[in-house]
Every structure is written in structure tokens, then in C-alpha cells.
């Protein structure tokens, strides 16, 4: 699993690749939280384009960051989920809390 972060104005874009399970969950949680605390970030985009697998550990990281972001009145989006990953996101109900878009450009266009 690889984690790439970039900041675009007040938005943190986190691009993940590989399998999103407990192996990476803690590291990713720390990585995102330290950036949320130290920088002027209000919004978060999680790019799952290259994620091939997700389980509860991955969903836990996403829902935890959603709670943080929404408590600070920010917005969070998920982009690029494959059909199998989107199935799990939908099954968990995360899609009712966090909008899912095809790609980052779609969010910029709204």
C-alpha cells in the first residue's frame, strides 16, 4: 500500500494504492491526522482509484476522518473507487455520509 498526500489550498488529497486493511490503517490515520492538525486544512479527498481491496479496518479510517472533518465544518469526498471497493463502501453506508465521485475533476466542477 502506498500513500501519497498533496495539499491544494485548504484541501488535502490522499491517494492510496494497493490493499487497504489493518496493515496500513494506523499509519494512514497518523499521516492524515498530523496533516489535519498542523496545516490549515478543512477538506479531505480520499482517492481510491488504485485500491484493490478494502475491509473494516480501511472503512474505520475513512469514517474516523469523516467525523474529524465534519466536526470542523469541512467537506470530505471519496473518488475513483473500483466497482468492488464501491460495493463495500455502499454496503457499509459510508456513501450516505461521504459523496463518492468518479474522479477529482468532478469535485472541482461542482
Amino acid at each position, binding site marked *: 500500500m502506498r500513500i501519497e498526500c498533496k495539499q491544494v489550498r485548504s484541501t488535502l488529497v490522499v491517494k492510496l494504492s494497493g490493499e487497504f486493511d489493518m496493515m496500513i490503517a494506523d499509519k494512514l490515520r497518523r499521516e492524515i491526522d498530523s496533516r489535519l492538525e498542523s496545516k490549515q486544512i478543512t477538506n479531505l479527498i480520499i482517492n481510491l482509484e488504485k485500491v484493490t481491496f478494502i475491509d473494516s479496518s480501511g472503512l*474505520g479510517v475513512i469514517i474516523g476522518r469523516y467525523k474529524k472533518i465534519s466536526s470542523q465544518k469541512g467537506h470530505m469526498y471519496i473518488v475513483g473507487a473500483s466497482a468492488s471497493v464501491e460495493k463495500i463502501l455502499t454496503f457499509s453506508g459510508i456513501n450516505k455520509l461521504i459523496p463518492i465521485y468518479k474522479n477529482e475533476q468532478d469535485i472541482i466542477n461542482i
Partner: protein
Amino acid sequence: MAMNIRNYMRIEFPSLPENVSFARASVGAFAAQLDCTLEEIEEVKLVVSEAVSNCIIHAYDNRSNEKIMVMASIGLERELEILVEDTGKGIADISQAMEPTYSSDETRMGMGFTFMKSFMDNVEVRSIVGEGTSVTLRRTFLYHDKEALA
């Protein structure tokens, strides 16, 4: 459920986080013998991931030097049975542990058993406090020609 076993596998590994993917990939590759769809294999991998993660996080409180055993067998009637066993702290209230909880543990979503129950036909949990837990997951896969006719 009495099952006539056609093939089986058994693996044992320490409770290291990297072994979660090893376990689901192994059982996924084994289940591929059932000639099921990729989507079904993904579901099998997910439930194994959940069961093995439970062992590491809950049974062993994230200690990495404990033992986890995973066994899978395939029956003559396209049944798959997966057994995940630990010798950890055990579960005092199994029905409570199996309820979907969204916030009990920030590290996960509390959906492990929900996924297991949804993607498998049957989930059986046996546990003795202080001795360990075993989770048995069963699913019978349809024949694809039957699915096509359905």
C-alpha cells in the same frame, strides 16, 4: 452440516498485521477451485480478512507473537467452509460482539461480523473466555449454469 470433503488446506501463522493479506490471498486462491465468480472470491477474501483481523485486534490486543490457524475445505456440493481459530482472550458475550457497532472502536468500523453474516450462508462463533475463539464460515456456491437460468 455434514460435508463430504473434496479438498482442504490449513495454514498457521503469527498474529502479524501483514498476515491478514496472506490469509485472505491463500483462502481466495484455494476457493478459486470452486470456479466461482471474481466477485464471489472478493467476498471470500473480505470475510477472511475480517475474521483474521478480529483475532489480531480483539483476541490478542494487537500482540504479534500469538498464533492464528486458518483452515478451509471444499465439499462435493460446492460448499466452502472456513475455520479461523485463535487462542486469545475469548468473547464473553458473543451476540453483543456480533452486533454492528459504528463507534465502539475507532480503529475499525465494527462491521466485521456484519460482512461475515452478509456474504456467507452461515457464521458460527464458539468462544471460551481465556482460551480462545473459533469462527466457522460456510457458503455453498451455485453452479453458474443454474445461476444463469435463475
